């Protein structure tokens, strides 16, 4: 490969390297995210001890777990910032698993 082509490739690599980490949260933002996650966990544990309606409590617990799941995947695993292919790959596995097992449990009458 000629020196000019090599330079061009190197430039693209550097650009890609820069882009790969661009937009990632800073350390202070990571700590804020961890505080949010810890707070949600505390709320979940608090809900466990409340005497509200079981259906409402369970629904809230599932929503809060979902929020924590999305926060970790989006910010700590960088799915929010990375290539869309990676996001689609993981979401495909997750959605496939969810549909497959919900259908399986419904068929066996687990939620009745």
């Amino acid at each position, binding site marked *: *490969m*000629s*020196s*000019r*082509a090599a330079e*061009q*490739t190197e430039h*693209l*690599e*550097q*650009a*890609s*390297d820069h882009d*790969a*980490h661009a937009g*990632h*949260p*800073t*350390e202070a933002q*990571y*700590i804020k*995210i*961890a505080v949010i*996650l*810890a707070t949600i*966990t505390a709320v*979940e*544990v608090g*809900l*466990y001890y409340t005497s509200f309606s*079981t259906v409402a409590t*369970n629904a809230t*617990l*599932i929503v*809060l*777990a979902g929020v*924590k*799941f999305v926060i*970790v*995947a989006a910010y*700590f*695993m*960088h799915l929010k910032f990375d*290539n869309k*292919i*990676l996001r689609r*790959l*993981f979401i*495909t*596995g*997750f959605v*496939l*698993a*969810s549909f*497959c*097992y919900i259908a*399986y*449990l419904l068929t*066996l009458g*687990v939620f009745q």
Partner: protein
Amino acid sequence: MSVTTDIAAAPATPAVHADGHGHVTNTGLSNEKLAMWAFLGSECLLFGALISTYFLYRGKSVSGPTPKDIYDIPYTSVSSFVLLMSSLTMVLALAAIQRGDHRRLRVWLVATALLGASFIAGQVYEFTSFIREGLTIKTNLFGSSFFVLTGFHGVHVTLGIVMLLSLWNLSLRGKLPQEKSEVVEIAGLYWHFVDVVWIVIFTVIYLIPS
């Protein structure tokens, strides 16, 4: 070959290094990172099967102990908090290597491994106390599905700790330069996945009463 011909012969889509660390790929993504995400997608199916089995057998044990008899929610909440915080130390380790701070990388890697080890120690204590109270993997359907699910998760955490200590060792020997930060990122993906699986387990197994 002339310079012009050389550039013209390059593929229409620039084949650049994924994150600047792997080899050249057509997608512009590193094969290793792509493989880890595909693996994590498949892990959703594994843990989905184990959680579904727990649901299927929930409340169907003909003899005790039952979840309400033996769960210690405050204790498990602390374990969950420890694992959640290990995700923070993991991203801080990644941020450290990305800016070339190898000393902090090692500090955060060891912190993550220690938090993971604390979680595992907590799980061993929990399993031991359950067995002392009469719940083993063979006692009833709850025992079988509970120990298999949480045991599989514990094995995943243990493998993650081995990965983290291997990275710490590589860094200590100077074999983990800044350009190879993607290795830490990939190990981090696995670690965070183990954390998100526990987020689901903690809610659906421990907090939602049967």
